[in-house]
């Protein structure tokens, strides 16, 4: 990077920010000077239109275009449902769909279970804050960064070379042969899933922890006086008390998991039978030039996410009403 490059970049950012504030300031000034009649309409337009235009042009229209694209081939001719037929018949595409289902079943359940258990165990313990920070930290890390961290754990050295990946070293300590983890299907999909669980557990833990603290102490003490053991107290008092939060955690993680792209992209690029819908969508549309197939995959992704989001919103709204 030369100084000129750096200067060009700084100019771009400063110019963009200046232009942005200038336009907003100027329009605001002009509107205040507008004739009294109809001023309210001008003001409304000023506040609302930037967002509406951006959304209409950048999200709503493209979404409709994509829906049309899904029914055409790479040269833009109408092919009907061919792309969807491809998706549900080609072995490679079926693997992608199957992997996505494995992801969306395993990740939410395991990360919520581990997060909840951890939150219970460290609840009211000494140093709870630090315990939380340790597990929550992966949330701040990018999926790409997480991908590199875990690739290092899964690293493989052939023959008599010393292992530098922790997982293979553990195998060696137990006298087993090291494995090329990321190239070995189907274990590699589960190893990628581990990365996602590693990231999402922190999220589950923080929300569960807040919910656990919201369960009234009197209820737990009453149960204690009744002679229940900790496990009974957990299943009969705590669990029903945090049900709403659990649903939110599971649905939220499911949505994030359905859209997972970066982890697969960084760790295997979807090779060795590890692809998922979001990754395949990118590969088809932007690498293979098959825009129709990419669009069809995007539609399927949308249809998979839709019911979960609706359910999530309904639960959230119910919770708010209760409160």
């Amino acid at each position, binding site marked *: 990077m030369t100084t000129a490059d750096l200067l060009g970049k700084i100019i771009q950012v400063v110019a963009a920010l200046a232009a942005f504030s200038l336009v907003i300031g100027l329009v605001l000034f002009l509107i205040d000077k507008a004739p009294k009649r109809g001023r309210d309409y001008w003001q409304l337009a000023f506040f609302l239109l930037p967002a509406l235009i951006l959304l209409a042009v950048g999200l709503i229209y*493209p979404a409709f275009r994509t829906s049309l694209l899904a029914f055409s081939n790479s040269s833009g001719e109408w092919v009907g449902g061919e792309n969807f037929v491809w998706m549900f018949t080609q072995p490679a595409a079926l693997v992608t769909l199957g992997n996505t289902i494995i992801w969306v079943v395993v990740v939410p359940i395991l990360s919520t279970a581990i997060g909840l258990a951890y939150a219970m165990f460290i609840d009211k313990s000494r140093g709870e804050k630090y315990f939380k920070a340790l597990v929550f930290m992966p949330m701040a890390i990018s999926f790409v960064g997480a991908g590199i961290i875990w690739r290092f754990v899964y690293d493989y050295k052939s023959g008599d070379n010393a292992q530098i990946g922790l997982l293979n070293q553990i195998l060696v300590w137990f006298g087993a042969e090291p494995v090329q983890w990321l190239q070995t299907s189907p274990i590699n999909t589960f190893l990628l899933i581990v990365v996602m669980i590693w990231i999402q557990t922190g999220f589950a833990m923080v929300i569960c922890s807040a919910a656990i603290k919201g369960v009234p102490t009197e209820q737990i003490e009453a149960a204690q006086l009744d002679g229940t053991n900790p496990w009974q107290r957990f299943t009969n008092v705590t669990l029903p008390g945090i049900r709403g939060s659990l649903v939110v955690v599971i649905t939220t993680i499911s949505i994030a998991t359905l859209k997972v792209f970066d982890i697969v992209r960084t760790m295997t690029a979807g090779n060795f039978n590890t692809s998922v819908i979001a990754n395949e969508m990118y590969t088809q549309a932007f690498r293979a030039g098959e825009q129709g197939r990419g669009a069809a995959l995007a539609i399927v992704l949308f249809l998979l996410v839709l019911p979960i*989001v609706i359910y999530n919103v309904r639960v959230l709204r119910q919770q708010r009403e209760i409160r």
Partner: protein
Amino acid sequence: MSDNVVDLPIPGATKTRVDTTAEVVGKSARVKKRLTSRTATVVALVIAVLWTLPTFGLFISSFRPAGLISTTGWWTIFQNPGFTLDNYQEVLFSTSQSSPQLGAYFVNSLAIAIPATLFPLVIAAMAAYAFAWIKFKWSGALFVLIFALQIVPLQLALIPLLQMFTQFLRPGQEWIHSIIPMIPEQGYLPVWIAHTIFALPLAIFLLHNFISEIPGEVIEAARVDGASHGQVFFRIVLPLAVPALASFAIFQFLWVWNDLLVALIFSGGTQDVAPLTQRLAELTGTRGQDWQRLTAAAFVSLVVPLIVFFSLQRYFVRGLLAGSTKG
């Protein structure tokens, strides 16, 4: 306790027996409780270690000389000691063709993330204010529509948006480049716009929740005194909404900083625009075994989010909880 025994009219012996049995029960319960809490603590410790170890290993390795990283595990650091800053020096500042040259990408990440946080913040705050405090027809329906847009995965918009950018935005960028050659043809503009658009539905929804809670008397009083909507917005609403703005800003900044998909599609992948994440993904593809570079490079990209995380944890958590369904 022994005093009690003496004072009580019941024969001392029986009482003591009762007491000891009670004590035994109490003790066994306490032991049991301590045991369960001890296993709980151990399990919690194991989870904490498991969750920290991968990052820790990478961090240690990033300071080890190249020769040692590729031949010995980081857990043998005491048998094979070695410390160097060369890895960081190389990934950040080396100008040789083969090095990752992360300096430029680090600047790009900042240059993308800062405007891509501020633009949607301002635009969404304005829209949120309109929905909350300006009465107009269709207000409710329009707000529900925007709320519903959150369910559109950004994958659904990518292909047509890219087509539009190459068709309409590219000529403008080329024109700017011809006037100021320092600004490359492929600038940050498409990435900023894309991030802004994708952030809006969530941002409007969140900020509306907060802005509509501002007491109506405050705003009406200002309006009666003759303040325009613009004045009310800048003088009253924005200062009061700072906590919500901060939470969203942090969430959006980290989201953009950590994003790979939008960058891959709209940045073009050159040193002029591409952010750190894109460069890292590229490096793992082409130089997946150069661990001395990858470890240091990964940490360069993690530094900013980790600083944000540890210094602004409360806002961070709040923003994260609010924005967890984005994407």
